[in-house]
């Protein structure tokens, strides 16, 4: 059909395509735009023609520019109105991990943000206006508001929660190690080791299923000087893993398994079997418990020896013996404790006196209060001896009249363990001791007796309080504890006693005062322990009983809290009962972090940077036998025989502590056979923990 073509004129060249307006070409009302006006419209869109004006049109360029401006205005409008009104869900850079999302689920969104972001105010506008103030509470502090129970707040931002001193030690110990793998080329961390924000490792807003604790091997090693490629080839070797030389209970596995258990038979006569699970039983979660109780594991064999050793006395007060001239100065001093200097002020007495302003007098005595070594020709030593004697007497009176705990209130301020020690000491026992030893017609006169020093600093009851009206102090009182010695009375339930009571009044038959000290046999008379008066030594002492004796525990805790060079600490911890406890409870003689009853699973031990779960390992038949991995060291000779009562000294304990254990360490290659990248995994965090 293309029989002809038609040629159309060329387009005009006098138009302005980039101008905002162009000629409408509607002059004369023809609507014919074939002829553009050569003048064209003005910039503001007004026709320049002096004839019949037309209506200029917007160019496509102008329309496009207007459209872009409209888009910009709409975008900014949405942004600003959203920021102003969009209180909820305005910022959502990514879903929170499930644990945090669950905790914050009940809060308004803005509040949820503020839980972690200090700058989050009540509206999104506050985020913009808060600026970048460095003094604001840091985000890590917000983390610690919830997580302060799992780590100390003061070390929360320190690498591995170690103190600066510990970090310096670690750095020094690894200074000589050089990396051998390509990892040494990785950059150093982007933060200081003493200012590690929680978010450095725990990155939020990565989705509900994202792990907050996952770290790559490279991330773990970025701070470490010794970097390596993988576990199997160049991971640093270890020495004693998984055994610690600071186990809280010193248990000799070797001797128990090879010597003691084979020869032991149960009640049915069957030979006992050394079974690991007897002590390390599985808990509810299937993990092995760290330890069982004394009653389950130890008491059957060790009760007798332990009772014997803890039954050794622990003196609270012992009256020293003074020379005759001194007793006249002191006044009202028992004749049984008169003649020559003798006796030693015990550690507990010294502690109580130290806190009651007798430090100077104690220091003046030779040998930490050893009266034997007092020189009678030295007036200064004699005066100190007299002062201490008066102080001991005042202490006895104070405990007798006020009670042991109120009388030791000043000591308890610094040493709260004293309250636990004296909790079971009855005031009547101290009253009885004071009456027997000092035989004072009036307690008040004894207290007010002239002495070489200023009046006692013990707050004993005043003379008015202790007047004859007081029942306990009155000679005419009916208290049999004072007027009649109950120990000399016959058992009121016995037949003889019943016969006497029928004929004679008991009070007439009883002596008014104790004529001579009673022989008290605590072993026979107090088999379960307790406080007692030892008249032969003029002492108030404590007899412990077996395992977990509260007074002995408190005494050890008290001593452990004292400084290393303190003689009270040395004497308390060196006493027989204390040594009996510390032999098994290693670390009880150290201050801080010690627990008498270690609990929890064996896999997760507080203070270690490693973790281990037996469960997946025990699924392998070859590993089901504990002894496959935990092989005992046959050459171990570090055990202490508990049956050898009183033979172990503190130096023995210190010698053995921290140097031996009775297992052969598990070597790295034993783990590396399975723990490779393609098998059981060799990520750092598979075995290591960042937080202790």
């Amino acid at each position, binding site marked *: 059909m293309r029989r002809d073509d038609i040629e159309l004129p060329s387009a005009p060249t006098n138009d302005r395509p980039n101008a905002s307006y162009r000629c409408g070409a509607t002059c004369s009302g023809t609507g*014919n735009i074939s002829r553009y006006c050569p003048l064209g419209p003005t910039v503001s869109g007004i026709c320049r023609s002096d004839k019949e004006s037309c209506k200029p049109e917007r160019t496509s360029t102008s329309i496009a520019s207007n459209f872009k401006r409209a888009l910009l205005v709409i975008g900014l409008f949405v942004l600003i109105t959203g920021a102003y009104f969009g209180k909820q869900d305005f910022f959502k850079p990514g879903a929170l991990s499930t644990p945090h999302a669950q905790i914050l689920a009940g809060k308004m969104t803005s509040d949820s943000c503020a839980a972690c972001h200090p700058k989050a105010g009540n509206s999104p506008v506050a*985020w913009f206006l808060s600026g970048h103030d460095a003094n604001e509470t840091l985000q890590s502090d917000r983390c610690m508001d919830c997580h302060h129970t799992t780590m100390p707040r003061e070390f929360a931002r320190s690498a591995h929660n170690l103190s600066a001193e510990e970090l310096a030690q670690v750095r020094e110990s690894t200074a000589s190690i050089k990396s051998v793998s390509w990892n040494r080329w990785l950059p150093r961390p982007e933060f200081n080791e003493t200012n590690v924000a929680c978010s*450095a490792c725990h990155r939020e807003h990565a989705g509900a299923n994202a792990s907050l604790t996952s770290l790559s091997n490279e991330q773990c090693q970025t701070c470490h000087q010794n970097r390596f490629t993988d576990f199997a080839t160049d991971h640093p070797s270890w020495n004693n893993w998984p055994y610690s030389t600071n186990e809280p209970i010193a248990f000799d596995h070797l001797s128990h398994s090879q010597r003691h258990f084979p020869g032991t038979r149960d009640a049915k006569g069957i030979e006992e079997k050394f079974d690991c699970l007897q002590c390390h039983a599985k808990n509810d979660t299937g993990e092995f418990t760290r330890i069982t109780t004394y009653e389950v594991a130890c008491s059957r064999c060790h009760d007798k020896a332990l009772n014997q050793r803890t039954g050794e006395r622990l003196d609270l007060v012992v009256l020293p013996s003074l020379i005759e001239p001194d007793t006249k100065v002191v006044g009202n001093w028992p004749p049984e404790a008169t003649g020559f200097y003798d006796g030693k002020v015990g550690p507990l007495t010294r502690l109580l006196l130290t806190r009651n302003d007798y430090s100077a007098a104690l220091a003046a005595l030779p040998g930490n209060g050893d009266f034997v070594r007092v020189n009678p020709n030295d007036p200064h030593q004699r005066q100190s001896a007299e002062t201490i004697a008066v102080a001991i007497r005042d202490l006895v009176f104070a405990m007798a009249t006020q009670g042991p705990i109120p009388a030791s209130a000043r000591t308890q301020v610094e040493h709260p363990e004293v309250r636990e020690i004296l909790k079971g000491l009855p005031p009547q026992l101290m009253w009885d001791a004071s009456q027997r030893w000092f035989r004072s017609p009036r307690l008040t006169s004894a207290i007010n007796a002239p002495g070489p020093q200023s009046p006692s600093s013990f707050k004993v009851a005043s003379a008015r309080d202790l007047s004859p009206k007081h029942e306990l102090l009155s000679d005419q009182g009916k208290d049999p504890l004072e007027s009649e010695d109950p120990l000399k009375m016959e058992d009121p339930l016995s037949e003889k006693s019943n016969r006497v009571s029928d004929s004679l009044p008991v009070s007439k038959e009883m002596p008014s005062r104790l004529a001579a000290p009673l022989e008290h046999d605590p072993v026979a008379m107090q088999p379960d322990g307790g406080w007692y008066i030892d008249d032969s030594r003029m002492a108030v002492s404590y007899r412990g009983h077996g395992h977990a004796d509260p007074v002995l525990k408190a005494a050890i805790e008290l001593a452990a809290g004292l400084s290393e060079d303190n003689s009270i600490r040395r004497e308390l911890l060196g006493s027989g009962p204390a040594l009996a406890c510390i032999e098994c409870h290693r670390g009880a003689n150290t201050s801080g972090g010690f627990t008498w009853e270690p609990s929890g699973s064996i896999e997760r031990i507080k203070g270690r940077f490693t973790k281990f779960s037996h469960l997946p390992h025990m699924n392998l038949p070859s590993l089901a036998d504990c002894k496959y991995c935990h092989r005992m060291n046959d050459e171990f000779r570090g055990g202490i025989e508990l049956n050898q009562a009183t033979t172990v000294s503190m130096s023995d304990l210190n010698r053995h502590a921290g140097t031996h254990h009775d297992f052969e360490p598990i070597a790295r290659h034993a783990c590396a056979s399975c723990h490779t990248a393609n098998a059981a995994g060799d990520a750092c965090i598979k075995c290591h923990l960042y937080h202790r």
Partner: protein
Amino acid sequence: MLVLLAWLVGAYAIQASLGHQAMYSGVTLLVCLIGLLLIGLRKRLTMLPLLSVSTWLQVHIYTGLFSVAVYAVHVPAIIAGGRFEGPLSCLFVIVAASGFYGLYLSRTAPRRLTAIAKQVRYDQIDWHQNQIVNAAANAVTTLPDTPARAILQAFYEQSISPYLNSSLPLAYRVCPTGFYKRRLLSRLSEADRYLDPTVAMVAGKLAALIRQRDDLNYQHAIQFRLRAWVILHAGLSVVLVIWAIVHAYLAFGMLGS
């Protein structure tokens, strides 16, 4: 690719050193977005010797592709939640998608436009349309007074003139088609055997004008797409950059606090 590889190595190093990889990728992304906007500035500063627009366009395309990769590393989800990050991510995705469409257009449109004999400027399409309309009207007025004239005159008034005077339908802009042209030419061809030679000559001119109008429509549709794409892509890019700057300000403010 080398730049992207180097950037990924840097990102890995920062992540391995427990640094803020999101900051690294975010700053990179913001710099890229601002850089991508500069091509618009270059087009307006024609007087400055700042390389050719073609070079700028190539850099713009590669930077855009790089930005998409950086965005994928930067965000935890392609479309974020929240009323601030949600629109921001949508804006990026739309601008990036329009960029890919622009890349497609820039590869196909020139070939399609040059396939037509005559190229016209977009702003002169109206003028060319009127030329065709006037030429058709003039051709019809020259028809001799024969019986065939009534036939062609009626066909012109009923079908050809409405087609030539019509504005471009939206459907045609989206999907250009020669359906109307073929139908008109087919009907004109069917009437041809009833026309005498003089009238047939005019009918031939009308057929040529119909083809020219169809070519013009095709030019119009393709250029409209290009124009609309540029407006949308450039307009949203400006909004995106402003939104991203606010996002960066907030992100720096929240860093470690």
